[in-house]
């Protein structure tokens, strides 16, 4: 039986998508009905065009991705949280600086974590290793980062490993520090919400000082260096209609590989500050317009829930055996804080870094890996199943039945569909569809995308 064939109405056509077969195509309604019948009815003879499609769909294709099993021997990366402190006071961020104890990772903790990770990599015959830095703002405890990078480089050289460094940063440091980052890091994810008025309005410093000019200057330094620059822009109700303008500004000012536009995740602080998530329809439409602008400059546009180049069972490093070390040596699967997991009824704790070794509880590993898209009823019949994989395990509730989409689902579905249409070279159809709110609603609100679902065409 052929499975995982999704079909979404696009005005008078159907987008057929079979991710396990890397197949996307457009057919008319009759073609979609024929395809469905050919899959479900053994004695049905479809037209030749559909027969050609079927032969692709009958080929083995990729296996559906599965959660990892067995002991952790190939961690996705080692994450280090040098501190949860931050020098900014972003109006929408209640996850770190404002409610975290101010501990800073000891150099020995960073050293032991790297050593334990590299030894694990050696035992597993890995050639490449990755160290990612998270915060707060990781460079707020810069000596930990400077030390960890030096230690990891030196040990990697001795052990014959290639090490990559990545950090997520607010970009507030002096030019000398920034040039060091540009020289030593492989990727920097820089939080830059837009031109000065937006950046200043949403991301002020703790002491009230303006920071936009500093971040913009540093984005230029990073653009000039060998580091890959990824700009991450938080989009609110107030800025969503400025996405094309933000895209033009970024394309003219900087040289990022990728611009990641993410809708604001509401928090107590963001509500207090009068910041709200964007309307999903506006977000999707403006995201595509912005991506057209960035594409012309050779810049990729990304949304974390729309990753089409691979198939995944989990949206994030959770379940992929990332080992994220907190200043106190706790090893967790998620870089968000314990309070956040607990609120969502989840436990992402894996173990402790103790006596220079990872002490990881196998039961905890199994528990964390079970957070997969296969456990999310809302996602079962959605065409984004293997790409969005249900979004953030902590912040995105998916305990609904199919079709009960929220804003994140709607924007993800629309942008996924638009991206597939673009891949098919159907830009003109995509733009006509984007301009037709009714057509968008029909596509986005379809409760099941599985072509073989009961009553699909009724």
């Amino acid at each position: 039986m052929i499975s995982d064939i999704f079909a979404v109405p696009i005005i008078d056509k159907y987008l057929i998508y079979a991710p396990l077969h890397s197949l996307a195509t457009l057919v008319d309604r009759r073609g979609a009905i024929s395809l469905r019948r050919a899959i479900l009815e053994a004695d049905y003879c479809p037209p030749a065009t559909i027969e050609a499609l079927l032969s692709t769909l009958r080929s083995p294709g990729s296996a559906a991705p599965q959660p990892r099993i067995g002991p952790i021997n190939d961690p996705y990366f080692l994450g280090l949280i040098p501190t949860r402190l931050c020098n900014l006071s972003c109006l929408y961020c209640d996850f770190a600086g404002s409610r975290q104890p101010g501990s800073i990772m000891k150099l020995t903790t960073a050293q032991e974590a790297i050593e334990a990770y590299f030894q694990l990599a050696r035992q597993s015959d890995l050639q490449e290793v990755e160290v990612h830095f998270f915060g707060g703002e990781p460079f707020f405890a810069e000596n930990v980062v400077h030390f960890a990078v030096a230690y990891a480089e030196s040990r990697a050289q001795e052990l014959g490993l290639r090490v990559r460094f990545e950090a997520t940063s607010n970009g507030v440091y002096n030019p000398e520090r920034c040039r060091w980052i540009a020289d030593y890091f492989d990727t920097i994810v820089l939080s830059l919400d837009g031109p000065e008025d937006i950046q200043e309005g949403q991301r002020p410093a703790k002491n009230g000082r303006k920071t936009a000019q500093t971040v913009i200057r540093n984005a230029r330094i990073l653009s000039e260096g060998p580091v890959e620059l990824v700009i991450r822009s938080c989009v609110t109700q107030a800025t969503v209609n400025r996405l094309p303008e933000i895209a033009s500004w970024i394309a003219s000012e900087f040289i990022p590989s990728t611009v990641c536009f993410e809708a604001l995740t509401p928090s107590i602080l963001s509500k207090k500050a009068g910041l709200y998530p964007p309307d999903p329809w506006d977000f999707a439409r403006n995201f595509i317009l912005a991506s057209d602008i960035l594409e012309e400059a050779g810049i990729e546009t990304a949304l974390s829930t729309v990753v089409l180049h691979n198939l995944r069972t989990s949206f994030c490093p959770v379940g992929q055996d990332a080992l994220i070390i907190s200043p106190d040596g706790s090893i967790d699967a998620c870089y968000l804080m314990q309070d956040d997991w607990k609120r969502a009824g989840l436990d992402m704790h894996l173990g402790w870094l103790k006596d220079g070794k990872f002490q990881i509880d196998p039961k905890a590993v199994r528990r964390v890996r079970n957070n997969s898209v296969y456990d999310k009823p809302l996602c079962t019949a959605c065409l984004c199943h293997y790409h969005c994989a249900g979004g953030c395990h902590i912040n995105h509730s998916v305990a609904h039945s199919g079709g009960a989409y929220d804003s994140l689902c709607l924007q993800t579905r629309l942008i996924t569909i638009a991206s597939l249409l673009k891949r098919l070279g159907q830009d003109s159809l995509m733009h006509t569809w984007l301009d037709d709110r009714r057509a968008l609603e029909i596509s986005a609100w379809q409760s099941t995308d599985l072509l073989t679902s009961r009553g699909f065409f009724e």
Partner: protein
Amino acid sequence: MKNKTYICSAGVEWVKNSDGILVVQGKKSQSYLLTGLESALWSWMNLSYSFPRLVSMLAELEGISRPAAGRRLRQILEDWRGKGILEEREIIHG
């Protein structure tokens, strides 16, 4: 009170590459590839870490005592002075 600090000699340029840090002494037409410990120290020094902080980070990096790290650091700095890539300066505090 007088403290010592170290700065790159005039005409010295350096670049980070995948093997380490390549330091070029233009006046002497000499180049040196700093790797491992030396590469780390060069980068930290250029981030303006103080001598005591360099000693403490070196001690952690090498797993040695601070006095031993201090001796090792002085040795390396002397070596760099000899190569003409580093100069010693005195900081005079009022």
